[in-house]
């Protein structure tokens, strides 16, 4: 008989802080946008670095770590090595993120402290995941994606720490060489490969898709891994050839992944375009738009194109892919904790009943408009337009936080 993954699932009280804090950091990230102006919107400005870390560490990483606490036993079919370790991860990640953001914005001396705190949180996560993977006898492609992603995360945070020490003036290293390696390891290597692997489990599960091959996923993950290695290599050899080859591989990897996603979408049995489907449609079109802008940047070299590509990849692709999945994962966690013991004894809600229709729709609508307006504002370097987009996003983010609390408190 097939092993029963839910045996190993962590308690809801362990996972819920990741989702609550992650959603609040999403709101903070949007508020931060109001402090970004045409003057400080450059790749290495403190405001941009602060914003990127607030969003990526506070929202993206926080939610991914919480989701992984729940999904790793499902995907790996073994229990966690030490699930209690997750109780230490969210407070450390939260404090470290805040210190790092303050460090980037006003107090560079805080950067090493924030960096080390984040490093400890991520190291606990990585070690826990590695020791959990060690229990698996045979790795499939999804399990391998978790392993590969976490190796890149380890490499990425080491580069990040070295950068934090250089940024604070404690050691003297080439920050721009480290930056490219750090960004590609964490974004391409960890976040993207994690989303690729997990989404190929979750998309067919929620859409009831069957009969597709996982070969494109294997190719996409292989190419993305090679892309990250080439870009890291280019940082330290100053090889433009390696660098551009890395970019080309990464673009091809994402396009192949998108090809698989659209096959899953076309073969789904559930045709309803619910809030989950809407979120993912926006996410994947943002990804394609981001790739288009990044390609254009490589041709014409206009920096706002790169910033726009980054924006669409972060707030468009990562943001909507994560919020969309939250509308599926959180109701399930709450239902499992609160209602599953009542099945057969009294009427229990369906998972769809636990979703706040108005606030989730408001989040998708306002954040969708906000993402597009801010993307245009970045390209035009227009302060007023950034604030206009941020205003849409603020309403959307507030609706998102409201949705999280609604789902978590559903009785």
């Amino acid at each position, binding site marked *: 008989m097939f092993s029963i993954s839910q045996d190993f699932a962590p308690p809801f009280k362990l996972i819920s802080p990741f989702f609550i804090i992650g959603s609040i950091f999403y709101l903070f990230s949007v508020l931060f946008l109001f402090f970004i102006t045409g003057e400080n919107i450059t790749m290495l400005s403190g405001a941009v670095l602060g914003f990127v870390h607030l969003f990526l560490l506070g929202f993206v990483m926080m939610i991914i770590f919480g989701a992984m606490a729940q999904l790793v036993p499902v995907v790996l079919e073994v229990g966690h090595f030490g699930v209690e370790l997750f109780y230490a991860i969210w407070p450390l990640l939260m404090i470290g993120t805040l210190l790092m953001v303050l460090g980037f914005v006003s107090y560079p001396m805080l950067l090493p402290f924030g960096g080390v705190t984040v490093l400890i949180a991520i190291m606990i996560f990585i070690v826990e995941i590695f020791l959990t993977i060690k229990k698996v006898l045979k790795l499939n492609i999804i399990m391998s994606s978790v392993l590969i992603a976490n190796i890149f995360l380890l490499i990425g945070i080491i580069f990040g720490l070295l950068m934090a020490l250089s940024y604070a003036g404690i050691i003297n290293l080439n920050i721009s060489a480290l930056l490219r390696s750090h960004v590609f390891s964490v974004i391409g290597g960890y976040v993207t490969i994690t989303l690729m692997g997990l989404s190929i489990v979750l998309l067919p599960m929620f859409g009831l898709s069957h009969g597709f091959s996982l070969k494109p996923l294997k190719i996409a993950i292989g190419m993305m891994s090679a892309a990250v290695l080439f870009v890291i290599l280019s940082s330290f050899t100053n090889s433009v050839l390696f660098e551009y080859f890395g970019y080309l591989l990464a673009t091809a990897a994402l396009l192949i992944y998108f090809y698989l996603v659209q096959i899953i979408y076309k073969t789904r049995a559930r045709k309803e375009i619910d809030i989950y489907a809407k979120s993912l449609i926006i996410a994947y079109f943002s990804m394609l738009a981001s790739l288009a802008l990044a390609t254009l940047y490589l041709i014409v070299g206009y920096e706002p194109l790169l910033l726009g590509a980054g924006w669409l990849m972060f707030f468009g692709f990562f943001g909507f892919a994560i919020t969309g999945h939250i509308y599926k994962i959180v109701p399930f966690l709450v239902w499992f904790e609160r209602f599953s013991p009542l099945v057969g004894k009294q009427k229990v809600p369906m*998972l769809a009943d636990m979703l706040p229709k108005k606030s989730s729709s408001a989040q998708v609508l306002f954040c969708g408009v906000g993402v597009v307006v801010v993307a245009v504002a970045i390209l035009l370097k227009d302060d007023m337009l950034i604030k206009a987009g941020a205003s849409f996003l603020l309403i959307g983010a507030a609706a998102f936080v409201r949705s999280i609390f609604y789902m978590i408190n559903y009785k």
Partner: protein
Amino acid sequence: MYSKEELFLAISTVIDPEVGFNLVEMGLIYDASCDDDGKVYVKMTLSTKACPMHQLIQQWVKEAVLKMANIKEVEIDLVWEPEWNITMADEHVKKALNRS
């Protein structure tokens, strides 16, 4: 003791909370039989191997069958061959899921 249809009827009280249909109309129950000693065998699958409700759904199936009079034991055989797909579901399920 009980026919396959009677066992399926009992199992049809188990609803998948994600899709809102019962396991029988979803086509997830492949076979069921009962011997004279009250021992029931249920052959079933799930819509995906990654389903986080594996254990719960099997438990609900067991409980639904154990509610029938004189049933003493329920054995569940969770299989992945043949792999489930939407063509195995009842027509009204297919129609409902097909609505965009």
